[in-house]
């Protein structure tokens, strides 16, 4: 009887804690789907509407987000991988300790400060301006610690398993590293996906590095560009009903992308175990 009561009590507590979250998600799904169904699948490719001028799509900002995440990944992955390899293969060196310490501190760093620093150094100082590349630099700084730490943890496991074996088979240093990276590859990919999921929804640094005109498709690498989270932020606070609707649809799209990425990482992590 007592056990049942405790069980019931914890269940009720859990429901109370989760109910606002569930309500939020349900609300988001209903309102988001309303917009997407009303406008059709073109929602993902069309330009956003003018104020008060009916529904529109999020094609421009979806393109912008995908472009930034792609460039940010291209910057982060090689840096993360080489840092992880260095830390794992030279664990006792002072540099490895320093790299690891810096990476871990970066994880806790306020992203708005990363945004403003990139704005000052790259957009202003190096005159890169506000575009996808500048934004991607800021996003890559946010992505690197996630990808690096995950890669370090996984490569450490494969190092402990295969370092001696690799050398015992007469492999050279570079081949031993290849063996360790290839054995830990699922973990490394998981780290990359976690990092990508993190930056897909990142808003703060983009407020400093992107533009707030949402009707421009990319023309070249340095065209001004915006992103889904920035559109949501701007549209949600606008006085126009139709922009609110587009923001709901954009929110659902963003949540969907992030959930797909997280599901993929869960799947990869489980396979590894």
């Amino acid at each position, binding site marked *: 009887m007592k056990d049942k009561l405790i069980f019931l009590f914890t269940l009720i507590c859990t429901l109370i804690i989760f109910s606002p979250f569930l309500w939020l998600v349900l609300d988001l799904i209903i309102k988001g789907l309303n917009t997407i169904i009303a406008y059709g699948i073109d929602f993902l490719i069309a330009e956003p509407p003018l104020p008060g001028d009916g529904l529109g799509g999020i094609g421009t900002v979806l393109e912008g987000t995908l472009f930034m995440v792609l460039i940010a990944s291209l910057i982060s992955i090689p840096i993360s991988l080489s840092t992880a390899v260095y830390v794992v293969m030279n664990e*006792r060196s002072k540099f490895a300790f320093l790299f690891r310490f810096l990476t871990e501190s970066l994880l806790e760093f306020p992203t708005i400060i990363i945004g403003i620093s990139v704005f000052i150094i790259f957009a202003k100082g190096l005159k890169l301006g506000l575009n996808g590349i500048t934004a991607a630099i800021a996003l890559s700084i946010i992505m690197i610690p996630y990808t690096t730490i995950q890669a370090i943890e996984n490569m450490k496991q494969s190092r402990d*398993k*295969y*370092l*001696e*074996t690799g*050398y*015992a*088979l*007469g*492999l*050279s240093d570079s*081949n031993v590293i*290849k*063996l360790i990276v*290839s*054995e830990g590859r699922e973990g490394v990919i998981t780290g990359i996906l976690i990092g990508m999921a993190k930056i897909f929804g990142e808003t703060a640094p983009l407020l400093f590095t992107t533009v707030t005109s949402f009707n421009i498709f990319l023309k070249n690498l340095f065209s001004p560009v915006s992103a889904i989270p920035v559109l949501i932020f701007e549209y949600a606070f606008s006085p126009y009903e139709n922009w609110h609707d587009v923001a709901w649809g954009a929110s659902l799209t963003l949540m969907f992308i992030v959930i797909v990425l997280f599901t993929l990482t869960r799947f990869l992590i489980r396979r590894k175990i």
Partner: protein
Amino acid sequence: MMEASNAFEIYNLNVWIEEKHILKDIDNLQIPKNKIFSIMGPSGSGKSTFLKVLNRILELKNRVKISGVVKLNGEDIFKMDPVQLRRNVGIVFQQPNPFYHMSIFDNIAYALKANGFVKNKRELEERVIEALIKANLYDEVKDRLKKPASVLSGGQQQRLVIARALALKPQVLLLDEPTSQIDVVGARKIEELLLNLKEQLTIVLVSHIPQQAARISDYAALLYDGRLIEWGPSERIFTHPQNELTEKFVAGRL
């Protein structure tokens, strides 16, 4: 020049790991070619450390200090390129450790390819099959070479690991208690395999079971607390040991 009859010759070998003196003055120990040489001793006597000195795997550890002379075919191993040395002196560890993320075939092919030992696909296949046959594993796996190594039993995995080492055609094979983690039948198969292999290479086997050493080795040595207590032909070591510790160990009382 007359070819040396010993694979290894060891003089005044001392090893410290993190300031701890692990191997103490191992001197005048000769490991003859094409024989099975057993290194026996209770846990913590320095057997594995000794084995790992022979192909310089021990040096991968942090804070290791080694002094003394170890010669392979008359040449000082500490003056050799460790990568070349390890291609000549293979090692098999206690725990079967195939590359679980690779197929049975690739487990053996990997080092052959990475070390540039084969010219084409046909040669690679030949070398892989040859190694599996040598390790008495081919008949059991020939229909599932593309399956992951994890489908094999512990004993089969250990023979796969032996095949992986044999594929590089080493002169010496070091084995660190290779049968301690597998069942009796699997262990017996590995013992038979080692007896067949000694025609082609020198085998140094670490064993904490005196019966196993007695069954298969031509020579045996006893290490105790990092010191070499006694070594010689197995027949003499197991029937007329000269040291009291050896007598006790052989009788299972140490």
